[in-house]
């Protein structure tokens, strides 16, 4: 009887191991994307900008986001600190077809201004993160090749080489290649290495902290370092709330101007 049990456990473990070994790059990425799926999200963001001389600037932002469908989402951000940028607010309405809409509310001018969409490769709030980096990647925008597994901070990780599926993706994101390390146990990216158009190393993303909130995995501390300029940015998320519904018209110019 004990032999049967042993054989069953052995078989199960073998199947799991075999499955892990046979997962291809795209499947791993798909699992990773599924682990971070939500409809509504809001939270506090601390954005720390550090220049090559080590000087720091700290921005505190209240962030709200909604996914309208698989390919479209909305994001509203309002600065909380420092006081000279307080209440500056930013709204992005993503469109799968055509340009995204972007609006900036400048309380000093009491005006909402529609601004150009600098593309997903544009910097997010003057940081080293781009809009692409903080958004959810679309699975079919990239091709995935699984490389040899590696350990990051003691955790077993899948290592993927991601190449843009077409020239437009490379142009939009500014990345010619991305290497991703995805933790095997929770399917969360814990490190990425970004390469520019000339395939020179450009940026490194480290993720010192991940958290499961409401059944969704979040990278709650991310450090992006631009190895070409020496500038780096850290994003720390706090008070994240998942799937707390917001009014349908929340992601609009109407709410952008509200100071509360």
């Amino acid at each position: 009887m004990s032999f049967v049990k042993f054989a069953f456990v052995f078989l199960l473990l073998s199947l799991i191991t075999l499955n892990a070994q046979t997962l291809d790059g795209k499947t791993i990425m798909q699992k990773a994307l599924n682990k971070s799926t939500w409809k509504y999200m809001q939270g506090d963001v601390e954005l720390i900008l550090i220049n090559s001389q080590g000087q720091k600037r700290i921005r505190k932002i209240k962030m709200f986001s909604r996914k309208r469908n698989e390919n479209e989402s909305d994001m509203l951000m309002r600065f909380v600190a420092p006081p000279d940028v307080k209440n500056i607010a930013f709204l992005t309405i993503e469109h799968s077809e055509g340009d995204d809409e972007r609006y900036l509310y400048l309380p000093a001018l009491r005006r909402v201004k529609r601004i150009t969409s600098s593309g997903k490769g544009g910097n997010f709030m003057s940081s080293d993160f781009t809009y692409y980096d903080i958004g959810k990647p679309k699975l079919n925008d990239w091709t995935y090749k699984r490389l040899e597994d590696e350990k990051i901070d003691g955790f077993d990780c899948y290592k993927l080489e991601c190449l843009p599926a077409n020239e437009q993706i490379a142009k939009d994101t500014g990345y010619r290649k991305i290497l991703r390390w995805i933790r095997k146990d929770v399917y969360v990216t814990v490190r990425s290495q970004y390469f520019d158009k000339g395939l020179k190393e450009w940026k490194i993303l480290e993720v010192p902290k991940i958290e499961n909130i409401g059944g969704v995995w979040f990278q709650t501390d991310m450090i992006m370092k631009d190895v070409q300029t020496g500038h780096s940015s850290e994003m720390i998320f706090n008070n994240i709330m998942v799937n707390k519904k917001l009014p349908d018209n929340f992601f609009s110019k109407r709410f952008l101007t509200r100071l509360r």
Partner: protein
Amino acid sequence: MMRLRILTLILIFAFVQISYPQNLDLGGYLKFFAHPNLNSPNGFNRLGTRLQTTFSYGTDNAFFYSSLDFNYEDTSVLGLYEESRGKGMTIYPVEAYIDLYWTNFEMRLGKQFIFWGKTDWLNPTDNINPWDYKNITSEVEDYRLPVTAVKGNLYFGNFNLESVLLLHFEPHKIPVNLPPVMGGLELRNEPTVFPENKLSNLQYAFRLSSQLFNVDYSFSYFHGFDRNPSLSFVFVRGLGVQPPYLTAQTSYKKIDIFGFDFVTTKDKFAFTGEAAYFLTEDKDGTDIYIKNPNLYYVVGLDYAATDDLSFNLQFSQKILFKYDKESEENEWLIRTRQARPVDDKITSTVTGKIQYSLGSYTSLLVIGVMNLKDKDFFLLPILNYNFADGVNISAGATWFNGPADSPFGRIKTDSKAFLEVKYSFSL
């Protein structure tokens, strides 16, 4: 007395802060400013310090906001116009309003700013808050004057209908110094005629905004009084040995303004446009003292070359209808016994703006406006350095130049440099 008032205000703020800490916000800035006049090296157009306090309190369906300036100015204007907002210590209420929120309707009551239009700097449809042309600085609350109004926003479908009721008329503050003598004739000023304070003189405005095919647009209408004065002259024959003289009188005339604006973006470009038709009291163009009906439009293009560098270019025109320059000049000669330069039927202006970030903490903004006929221009370069979180140092200049009788040439002695250090705080 002044100290007592300030102390009382601080105590009120402190009391409310302690009583309702979770919904309150108290902040503002402290600013030192020095504006030396470029034409008289030893003089300052402005030199002083300002403490602005902002106070807000809100719940889910109501919000209160107020902003108060405590200014101490060491000097009044030494430039062309011997006037400033106030020398010495002044308290200036910038805004104070209450917002009320419903599901599809919002209302704002009180002293407020209402800015319309989608182009940069030049906004033909922006006619609610007057300008203070005597007080052009980097702060919008200096060069625009708040209005006491009731504003309602009704949201239905993809539309926003904004209605504004203005409870009090306030004109632009314009630096006009009439000479004591014009063309050899003494000039006597008559008292200014302001609109009477009666119900039929209420001013109101509407704007309907929406979006179609990724284009944001709005139609607007304003009924009220032109904030630019009409200046009329009367030639008076002298009695007996008394020489003839001229009387000058400023008055404010009714106006209806029909506006339209739009903005859309494509890749790194934004396209903007704005136009307004001004239907003045002089519908037939027969009164030389009242501006003729006219069209004012602006078209613009924004280009974000990179995250750090962007450009804006605009072209604008003012077209006077039912207007003949020659007969206007003749009429002036007949009525006032002297020749006077009059407006062209069409005036064209170009504006440009460059924004450039130099590294992480320094940015440069250059704004230029040029009238195409006389090539007179206004240039405003501003260099800003973010010294620390909440601390900004900005330096720049407002430079007017052009032929002596051109719009910017006439005020070139008002050109000034400026240095400002601003510390923003939030409690």
